[in-house]
């Protein structure tokens, strides 16, 4: 890959990620009106700035950007009342797509020339992840609509899921060393 094209790749992926983040940030604003909309617009703006920074320069801001975008959506959900938001799977897929594109932008270093099969395989994985996220979100919403025992059972499942997720952090967020093969 020629050098100028390589140098443009992180910028292109970063801009694509920012565009997705903009869609994720702006879409929930249509659900609210009045002063709350104005306040949430500021939150969306902050989320967008963090998302752009995470995609284009500071990769460590990915987590905070996701949290702010999620917080904005949570407020919209609370204001919505008991009605289920059928667009939630789209938002989940959008968040995942943004995060994957942002991490791809950070991974695509200007000095590293990726061969075409590497780029194609990565694009396929990102697209498949987004589609799978969409399907999974729909399944979760469908499952939520099914009668599943009392509130206590649901609470227990939720607590176990949240605790398991937190336990994942402790397990995976440490470097391990394995011996390199000779040769």
């Amino acid at each position: 890959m020629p050098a100028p094209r390589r140098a443009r790749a992180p910028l292109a992926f970063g801009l694509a990620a920012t565009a997705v983040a903009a869609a994720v940030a702006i879409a929930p604003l249509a659900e609210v009106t009045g002063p709350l909309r104005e306040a949430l617009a500021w939150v969306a703006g902050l989320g967008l700035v963090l998302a752009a920074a995470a995609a284009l320069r500071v990769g460590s801001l990915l987590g905070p950007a996701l949290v702010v975008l999620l917080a904005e959506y949570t407020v919209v959900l609370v204001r919505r009342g008991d009605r289920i938001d059928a667009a939630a799977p789209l938002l989940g897929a959008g968040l995942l797509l943004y995060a994957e594109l942002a991490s791809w932008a950070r991974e695509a270093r200007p000095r590293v020339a990726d061969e075409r099969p590497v780029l194609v395989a990565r694009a396929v994985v990102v697209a498949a992840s987004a589609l799978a996220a969409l399907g999974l979100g729909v399944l979760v919403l469908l499952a939520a609509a099914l009668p599943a025992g009392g509130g206590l059972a649901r609470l227990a499942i939720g607590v176990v899921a949240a605790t398991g997720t937190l336990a994942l952090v402790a397990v995976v967020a440490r470097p391990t060393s394995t011996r390199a093969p000779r040769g």
Partner: protein
Amino acid sequence: MTRRPSAKIAAYVGVAALALLAGLALGRPELVAVAAPLAVLVVAGLAGARDPELAAEVAVDRERALVGDQVTVTVTLQAGSRVERLEVLLVVPPGMEGPDGAPRTWATAVTLAAGEERALPIAVTCRRWGAYWLGDVHLRAHDRFRLFTWERHLDRHAPLKVFPVPDALWALVAPRETQLPTGSHVAPQRGDGIEFADLRPFLPGDRPRSVNWRATARRGGLMVNQRHPERATDVVLFLDSFLDVRGPTGSTLDQAVGAAASLAAAYLRQRDRVGVVSFGGFVQWLQPGSGQAALYRLLDTLMETQVFATVAWKGIRHLPPRTLPAKALIVALTPLVDERGVAALFDLLARGYDLAVVDISPLAHAGAAGGEWAELAGRLWALERETLRHRYQRLGAAVVEWPDALHLQQVLLEVEACRRRAGLAPR
């Protein structure tokens, strides 16, 4: 290989946990629908992450090259299991240039199928002479979801010596005195040779073919021709490596080493014996020798020439006596900026050596600083250098300044002319 989790894992897991807790607390399944893909991707990535089975080898296609040559570094990779993305980063040492003009590192990313063997040839261009170690390669493998990286450093370095391209020299500095072995220099002594020297009366033992019959007819007695024999000489290339004045177009040490290589090759072609003394913070020497083997030894020694910063005083008494044979012609290549190098040349003159000094001008490399004071300082420096050259000339050494723009041959012709004017070289 060392496995490292990416920052993405913590972000995904943290956001998923927050969303799940919020979903629980608020009773909103939408938040679970948002969090689930992030958590599932991490779980899938964890389940599929395996340490890559990867064997790697680095090879360089040759051990010697000339400045401007291309050397191919081949990184051979063999994967036991599929590697989704493997970054291969070659560290390009200073003085060399990677593909696409990469100055410090060159990197590519490839995918390897299970059992696949790939050879990555990387063309590296030699831009500066020197001794290098090539093959410093870093590998970084990624999994499918880019949740983990595995890193490995290959430190099996291959040696490479890059020699300067020798200039074609057709005239060299002629020695004042020669040695006994046969060579290409006309010796001032009388003996068997080609060059006519004088006539003298015939003596018993003279060969009949030496009789000059015309002179015999004119003088009425047998007269024979005397001739100058062709002899070899000992040449010592004296490199001042105390300081290197480096600029955007090159450096004084680069010029000195290039000139030394050219001179060594040219003198050895004339069947002279050539030695080298690299006189600086780190002193290196090679006793005079002749032939092709001596040339390679000389070049190897020159390639190891470096500037080692030191304030310790060094004189030529630090050198073994045999490195500076009597009657040797010493060609000094120096920028005349370090007083230890300057003093060593005075010492050589005081000991009666036949000395020719090529003063590699540092003025061009030092660059022109702006301002009136800088200009004044530059002129003062040039005056000081000129004074120093006059001092050497008064003591019997031929000193010629070598500006960057001139070819070495022009400088040598000027040195020779200077020596003839001073009566130091045969006319």
